[in-house]
């Protein structure tokens, strides 16, 4: 896990930081107006909070100028966002709460939850989903239990299903052995199919626009003499991108060299 700089922030300041983080993901820089809109608070409270954040060197801010996060601010904000997402996931996936409700609860709880417990939440979700005695169906059962007046259904049938699931998992495991790697690890001449592109900014958008959609085959052609960027072939044409951009593209290596689609 990433190390969090030791900074004590109030819950509301964390909310502000999170809001800026999310706005900056959507556009290059945030304005006080965007923040007050997103958090539904007055402009004056925004200004106050921005000064407080700037004092702690978490954001770059001067009145009437664009707001951006400092490196420190990014780290802190990313941590808040992570806590938020872990909690929301837990509420949605384990506790079967509706997404908007989970979101707003996560928003309130994210500020107080210690790191140790958060990690346990993640491990628990993971465990429940993996363990045959739990599993996704078991969690769905919990949702059913809550929604239907705490009725328990057919327990024998349910336990029987567990074994079935263990068997079916073995099969999927086998097909999943094909390696998922990032594009940057491929050597010249190697081919792979795109699985996903992470991030939510202009780079991903540009790649999608240029045809790097899921399932598209890419072949690494060469690396520039200075070691970066790389050249790839996609949809029959040549594209160059920096390694740090290629790192964001998850690809699936295929055993055989597949025939390119026309």
């Amino acid at each position: 896990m990433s190390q969090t700089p030791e900074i004590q922030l109030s819950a509301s300041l964390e909310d502000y930081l999170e809001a800026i983080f999310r706005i900056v993901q959507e556009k290059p820089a945030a304005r006080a107006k965007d923040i007050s809109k997103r958090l539904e608070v007055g402009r004056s409270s925004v200004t106050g909070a921005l000064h407080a954040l700037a004092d702690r060197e978490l954001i770059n801010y001067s009145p009437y100028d664009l707001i951006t996060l400092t490196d420190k601010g990014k780290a802190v904000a990313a941590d808040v966002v992570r806590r938020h997402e872990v909690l929301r996931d837990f509420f949605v996936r384990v506790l079967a709460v509706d997404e908007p409700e989970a979101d707003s609860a996560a928003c309130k709880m994210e500020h107080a939850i210690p790191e140790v417990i958060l990690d346990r939440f993640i491990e628990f979700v993971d465990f429940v989903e993996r363990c045959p005695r739990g599993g996704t169906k078991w969690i769905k059962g919990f949702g059913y239990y809550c929604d239907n007046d705490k009725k328990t259904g057919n327990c024998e049938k349910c336990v029987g299903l567990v074994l079935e699931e263990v068997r079916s998992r073995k099969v999927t495991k086998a097909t999943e052995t094909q390696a998922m790697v990032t594009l940057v690890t491929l050597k010249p001449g190697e081919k792979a199919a795109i699985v996903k592109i992470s991030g939510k900014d202009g780079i991903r958008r540009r790649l999608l626009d240029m045809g790097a959609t899921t399932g598209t085959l890419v072949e690494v052609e060469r690396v520039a003499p200075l070691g970066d960027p790389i050249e790839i072939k996609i949809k029959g044409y040549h594209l160059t991108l920096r390694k740090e951009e290629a790192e964001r593209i998850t690809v699936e290596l295929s055993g055989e060299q597949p025939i390119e689609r026309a």
Partner: protein
Amino acid sequence: MTNHLRQPKPTGPSSAGKRITVALAGNPNSGKTTIFNALTGGRQHVGNYPGVTVEKKEGQCRHGRTPLRILDLPGTYSLTAYSIEERVARDVLIHDQPDVVIDILDASNLERNLYLAVQIMELGRPLVLVMNMSDVARQRGLEFDLDLLSRLLGVPIVSTIGHKGIGLRELLDTAVEAGERGPIGLPRQIDYGPEIETEIANLQRIIEQAGVALNGIPARWFAVKLLEGDPELHRQVNHEAVIEAAGRSARQLESILGDSPEALIADRRYGHISGACQQAVRSTVELRHTLSDHIDAVATHRVLGLPIFLGLMYAVFHLTFTLGGPPMAWIEAGFDWLAQTLNGLWPEGADGPLRSLLIDGVIGGVSGVLVFLPNILLLFLAIAILEDSGYMARAAFLMDRLMYKIGLHGKSFVPMLIGFGCSVPAIMATRTLENRRDRLTTMLVLPLMSCGARLPIYALIIPAFFPRNWHAPMLWIIYLIGILLAVICAKLLKKTLLRGETPPFVMELPPYRMPTLKSVGLHMWNRGGAYLKKAGTIILGISIVLWALQQWPSLPEEQAQAFARQREQIEVMSDLPSAVKNEALVALNYAEAKAALEASLMGRIGRGLEPILRPCGFDWKIATAMVGAFAAKEVFVVQMGIVYALGEAEDEDSEPLRDRLRADYTPLQGFCIMLFCLISAPCMATIAITRRESNSWRWALFQLGGLTALAWVVTTVVYQVGRLVS
């Protein structure tokens, strides 16, 4: 076809039909410019879109009796508005409402090119697709069933070979017909699949209710774009209920389909295109390696790539500055001749300010503008060839690692290199950079690349103060300091004033192509014209101001009379040999020139600057010469000659001048002069061209002020520390 050479908006002849506005869209490298040039020839107008540095090209042509106005949109891959080019292209399509859109497709790269086409289709404007470079595609073994493809996509398709002008007549027929018919209801739509379609229909209803759709753009288009999370459109729509609904729909889709809507929508679009292509395009031969691939195997080779690149860069540099040298000398000689001829025509004794204004101010100024023209034309000849052939993208590929370390783009390398010759064409060359912040940063630090005009200063100073075996290292040190400062400044600018999200490097390496004479010629012509029109006027204006500063106020009456008396005294001394007499007269003239300069505003400014420049180790003489050097860096040497009463004819090899310098200054001061000339205020032509290329006086003045301040700080530190040490 004779008409309206420079009229951007001629009024259509009354007898002919209504004028049709055509927008040319297409991917970069799709041959769009070639078709634009073929259609409009010289009747094009190059400007800027307001507020941005994106070039706006517009031209006229006629088809039968219909006059056409042709807008060349910036080349884009999509209409998402993530880059300025895309936003400009989209704004023109939405706000200018062209009667017909022509989308140019590179036939050998059809799928990606159609991605833009399907987005234009969704906008609902009449559209004609152009299958360009169909000959190349055929060579690669691709066969097209155009009728079928046209039916599948629901738009007319014309096949052309742009650089040979084949198919253009048919293209105009189709475009005029489509334009006259007007929009014919909704075009064929992409089916985004049940989940997404449900959300689109839902959003479409909300948008229609809210009434935020505008300009006859289908609500469906808004719905799709909002689902894609288009930030620009979110701003434009600015309707809470709609934005909220869009956010809800997007989250909903993400949870059902497990990927973000923008990825899903891009997927479906490509799926749709791929489906159509599978039916209508047949690949007859499997061509693994094209000629272009073979060239790249050498041109971007691990070992050979860099030497080839450096060789080509040397050739560009050589072409620009060595070949540009003689024409520059001709221009200068021509204007000298003109000045002398005019001087001779002037009635004897009528030595008025008008004569000086005309000869020194105006003719000197015009010559100062035109003298850059050979460099600019030759450089853009080279750049046009590099860009049109496709090599420029490879240059960026090869150099990006180095330039990215400074926070710049691989394409910044070429302008930086040209900067060692002259900053003016180099700043114009930053046009190859697409991102505004990269472009501004490059432009602002470019003058730190020590240009050729500073060389005479170094050539004067270095031998004057340093022993022979130190000459070469000294020159290297100066150049390296410039490069180092440029790197530091670029990094600093990118961290402060010009910070922001790093734009994607992701860039197409287009197939190599033979540049056409016409396109290269037009490129040169447009650049040269733009320089003369926009920067030329500023340069001329400043050089007249500088002339006036040097001219006024003239020598006080009593001093002028004193010189005149002395002259008479020498003349009447009949016992002197004429050679000695002449020498004395010349010396007297030089002394008068010196006195005149001291009396002029420029001399006074120089004196006024002395206290400010004293920490750098400079006295009023150097200060005055520096002020004069704003006209052009090499003028510094001439000004020093005048200040030392050695006459204007002193050049960088002048031993008398070096002797005087040695007598007055220490080597440390000599070094400081070079340092200050390297860093400080670039010449006025640079400022003028920065103003023109950045489209703002603020950046030009920032460059002027920033670099001068930097020069002062650096030189002061060096001088003061140097003095303490020695």
